[in-house]
C-alpha cells in the first residue's frame, strides 16, 4: 500500500523563480493538504484540495497556489520565490470526513 509520495525531494531555486511540487496521496484518499515547515518550527497549513477545488486556505499569500487532478494527485506552485520560502513542504492526504491525516516525506526547497 503506497503511502503519500512527493517529488522532488530536494531542490534549489533562485529568488524570483517559480517552483512546482508534486504529491500523490495514499491509496484510497481523496483529500490533499499542503504544509510549510520552516526550520525549527511546526508545519503550517497552506491549503487543502478536495474534488479538484481549494476548500480551505491558511494564512499564505496568493503566490502560493495549487491544483488537484482527477486522480487526486496534487501540485503546489509558488511564484516569485523569496528567501523566506525556504522550507520543507509537506503533503498530507486523508479521505473526506476522515480524521486521520498521513504525511509524505516532504520536498526540501532552498531559495538562494
Amino acid at each position, binding site marked *: 500500500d503506497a503511502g503519500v509520495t512527493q517529488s522532488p525531494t530536494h531542490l534549489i531555486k533562485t529568488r524570483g523563480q517559480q517552483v512546482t511540487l508534486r504529491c500523490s496521496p495514499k491509496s484510497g484518499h481523496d483529500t490533499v493538504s499542503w*504544509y510549510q515547515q520552516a526550520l525549527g518550527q511546526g*508545519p503550517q497549513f497552506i491549503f*487543502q484540495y478536495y474534488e479538484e477545488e481549494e476548500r480551505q486556505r491558511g494564512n499564505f499569500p496568493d503566490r502560493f497556489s495549487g491544483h488537484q487532478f482527477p486522480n487526486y494527485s496534487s501540485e503546489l506552485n509558488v511564484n516569485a520565490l523569496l528567501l523566506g520560502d525556504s522550507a520543507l513542504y509537506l503533503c498530507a492526504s486523508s479521505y473526506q470526513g476522515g*480524521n486521520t491525516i*498521513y504525511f509524505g516525506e516532504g520536498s526540501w526547497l532552498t531559495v538562494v
Partner: protein
Amino acid sequence: AQSVSQHNHHVILSEAASLELGCNYSYGGTVNLFWYVQYPGQHLQLLLKYFSGDPLVKGIKGFEAEFIKSKFSFNLRKPSVQWSDTAEYFCAVTSRSNDYKLSFGAGTTVTVRA
C-alpha cells in the same frame, strides 16, 4: 488567538528515564488531538490520537497521552525511553472553530543519550 503550545523546545534524557511533553491548546469547543513524531530524515508519523471517550490514549511504541479538558492539555508520556526515541515530537489539534484544519505546535526535540 487560537494556538497550540508546546512548552519544551528541547529535552535531553538518558535511556530508561521517563518522558513527559506538555501540550496546551486554546481552541474552544470540541477538539481532536494528535501527537506526531518525526524521526531524523523521516516523515511525520502519527503516534496517537484522541477524538472522544477515554481521555487516556495509548499509542504506538509505548507512548500514551492524557486529555485534560479543564486544562486544555494533551500531554504525551512514556515511562521508559530508548535511544531510538530521539526525534522531534509535534502536538496538533483540529477543531470545528478552525474548520478542522490541522494546527501544529512548534515541536519538541527529544534527545535520548545511550
